[in-house]
């Protein structure tokens, strides 16, 4: 069970209702995220927007919308078309294909543990300040769902089921784009991955192999992998800093990333750090999906780094292409990275359509 009904929340609602407030007709059932104990004890809790609290009905509605192609212009594509659970809610294709066959230029980001992206922003280039904002965009993006919000809302309003679901979630059968994005955001916030082999190792339930342990030491060693400065460490189960870096992919940028959003040349070539959790399911890698395998990724950091003006100062020996890991070190590092993958997340029925 991924949700717990919030007893306190109900009490608050009852108390609020007794105050004669106009919102007393709002009857959605408060819900809480089912947070893995280690997350709870080690890092700050998720920040749930005060104007979009989690409710059982809101999450159920969000899940229905996530899997329903009704939001796209020709009713062929849903969020799940490019965010497949088997891929940790990412797309195995380098570039996702829109309803008319158009391809984007970025690899679909996986969706998990986004409730902890407390500071935002979202997308590879940070163009959405909040998760709700992020969800707003694909519906009207011409190379994705290529719809208009009035059309999408009309389709939902005219359907046989959605007015009732919106009524249950938001206290009114009248549908609008804000409610759609809020509901989907609620569902996406429930996508929590916290059951990898490494999680179980931290919980004392499983041992790491010798190769995985050696790989962890390479990951944390500032003179070798030094991955932790951007991807975190065992005390932080997110495995990303949710910040933006130029990780030495290109000398010149065909995609300015964050720089195109902020207009600040200092942000050119910077992209959001992806989590290292679930790498077993999220290939291809990098913002443009240029690497098909994890080996290619490790090779890049080991000997493929390229200098550019905004490259992260944390990358070492760029003139030599990187830190130059041995083949054994690469193998160990890969073993450790794969220990961060959580197969149960990709099959959890809680996240599947009802």
């Amino acid at each position, binding site marked *: 069970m991924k949700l717990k009904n919030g007893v306190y929340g109900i009490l608050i609602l009852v108390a609020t209702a007794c105050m004669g407030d106009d919102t007393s007709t709002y009857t959605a059932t408060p819900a809480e995220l089912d947070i893995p104990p280690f997350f709870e004890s080690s*890092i700050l809790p998720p920040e749930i927007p005060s104007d979009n609290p989690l409710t059982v009905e809101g999450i159920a509605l969000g899940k229905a919308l996530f899997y329903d192609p009704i939001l796209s212009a020709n009713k062929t594509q849903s969020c799940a078309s490019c965010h497949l659970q088997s891929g940790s809610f990412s797309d195995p294709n380098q570039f996702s294909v829109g309803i008319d066959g158009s391809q984007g230029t970025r690899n679909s980001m996986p969706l998990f543990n986004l409730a902890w992206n407390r500071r935002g922003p979202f997308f590879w280039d940070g163009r959405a300040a909040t998760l709700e904002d992020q969800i707003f965009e694909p519906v009207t993006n011409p190379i994705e769902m290529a719809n208009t919000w009035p059309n999408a809302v009309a389709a939902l309003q005219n359907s046989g089921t959605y007015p009732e679901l919106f009524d249950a979630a938001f206290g009114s059968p009248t549908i609008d784009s804000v409610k759609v994005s809020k509901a989907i955001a609620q569902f996406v916030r429930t996508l929590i991955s916290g059951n990898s082999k490494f999680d179980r190792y931290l919980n004392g339930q499983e041992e790491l192999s010798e190769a995985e342990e050696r790989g962890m030491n390479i990951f944390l060693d500032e003179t070798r992998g030094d991955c932790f400065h951007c991807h975190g460490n065992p005390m*932080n189960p997110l495995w990303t800093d949710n*910040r933006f870096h130029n990780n030495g992919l290109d000398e010149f940028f065909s995609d300015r990333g964050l720089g195109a959003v902020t207009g600040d040349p*200092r942000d050119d070539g910077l992209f959001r750090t992806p989590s290292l959790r679930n790498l077993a399911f999220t290939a291809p890698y990098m913002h443009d999906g240029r690497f098909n395998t994890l080996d290619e990724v490790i090779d890049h950091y080991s000997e493929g780094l390229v*200098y550019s003006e905004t490259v992260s100062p944390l990358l070492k020996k760029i003139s030599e292409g990187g830190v130059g890991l041995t083949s054994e070190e690469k193998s160990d590092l890969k073993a450790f990275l794969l220990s961060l993958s959580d197969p149960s997340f990709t099959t959890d029925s809680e996240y599947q359509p009802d």
Partner: protein
Amino acid sequence: MKVIASKITLTFLTVALVLTGCKDNDDTPLAELSPSFSFTHNWDGVPIENADYENTTYINERGESLTISKLVYLISDITFTDAQGNSFSAGDYNLVDAREGVNLSFTPDVVIQEGTYNVSFTFGFDDEDNAGDYPDLNSADGGVWIVPMMMGGGYHYMKLEGKYLNTQTNPESEVGFAYHTIRANDNSTSPITLQDTSFTVDLGDVLIEEGTNIEVQMNVAEWFKNPHTWNLYELYSMLMPNFDAQILMSENGAAGVFSRGN
């Protein structure tokens, strides 16, 4: 734990002060004050603003050209000591992100009466505080403020990052530097050798009155200057596991990086 102990002491003192203040109605009770702090940053007196990061070139003591891209640091245990030697500290901490302008103002959770106090704080965490587990710091700086256990655990004290110009290559090239200060550690020994490299910054005597704000200035140039003239060619990165480098950085930090601005 020191933080909790300090808070208990502080609460006791506060209650005692309130009771003392109430026992004689003829006396005008002294105001209870919570002085605030502001943090500013400069390079030998020239303010460092957001626009300077990655743009402005600075010359360090050794003559090396560098730009700064990141400056985040931790201060803790702001302490007010009166003339009788009584110390008041909440034992709390503040993580300053100079480039992003985060936590440039801080009011420690302490209440004192008007008067003159010696004001000091700790740069980083002393060993006692560094042994604590702080979910907010575990999440700070994108969740990468923590120091891995293989280097002794605890938390970074400072991340000063940027690039310096290597004039020894042809053509000249920019090289990243990561001047990261943590507790000195040597994991070639068993058990790991650790040395507390936090240090106390004494801001001198300050008259605390209503509305007092104490400006803490950091002269970033001093990290490269005194007593050790920093050589970025030799010490530009991989400094966290470098025990001797951590000692050098701590000594430079303690020798004039911080001062009181008002």
